[in-house]
């Protein structure tokens, strides 16, 4: 019962943050701010939805001691870790590419990278 509530809560939180991330992508004015919404919010949301799966699998594993549920939990965890790292790096790569391409951050108060690149 408690498990069910936990799973539901995790899924709800995950969905909420995913929605937020997508809304952020749609609302924010330029690439960098969109990346903020995308990378953080959706990754965070996905971590929570996967956490629900891991919880479910771990609980079932401790009930049944069936090896496959341990595999499920571990693989989901691996997927989440990989997702987090790749998302962060990909966001960095995208931001850098956009900057190299010449997209200026909108409404920026300061741009030290521009100064660094063109002393």
């Amino acid at each position, binding site marked *: 019962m408690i498990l069910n509530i936990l799973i539901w809560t995790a899924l709800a939180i995950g969905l909420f943050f995913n929605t937020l991330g997508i809304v952020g992508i749609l609302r924010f004015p330029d690439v960098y701010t969109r990346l903020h919404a995308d990378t953080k919010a*959706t990754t965070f949301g996905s971590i929570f939805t996967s956490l629900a799966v891991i919880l479910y699998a771990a609980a079932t594993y401790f009930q049944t001691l069936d090896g496959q549920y341990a595999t*499920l939990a571990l693989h989901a965890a691996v997927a989440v870790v990989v997702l987090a790292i790749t998302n962060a790096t990909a966001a960095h790569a995208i931001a850098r590419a956009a900057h*190299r391409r010449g997209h200026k951050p909108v409404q920026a108060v300061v741009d030290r990278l521009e100064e660094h690149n063109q002393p």
Partner: protein
Amino acid sequence: MNCWMFTASAMAALMLLAMVRMVKGPTSADRLVALDAVNTLVVASMIVLGAAFKQVVFVDVAIVYALLSYVGALFIAKYLGGEL
């Protein structure tokens, strides 16, 4: 428990929403951001669906996706930065 399926459907709807940015995106970088969002959602929903179908072996697909679409995104970013 039908919550998994529901979550996956909601994520599919979110993917469609992200597609709006892909359609509108004034620059390619914006489209790439949308692709990244879709990618994250797909991986998440694959994990969720793995639980929904009660089949352990399906989660491998999610790992493959998390690993591999990264490479695609890097290629696009490298091209976008004019470095390829």
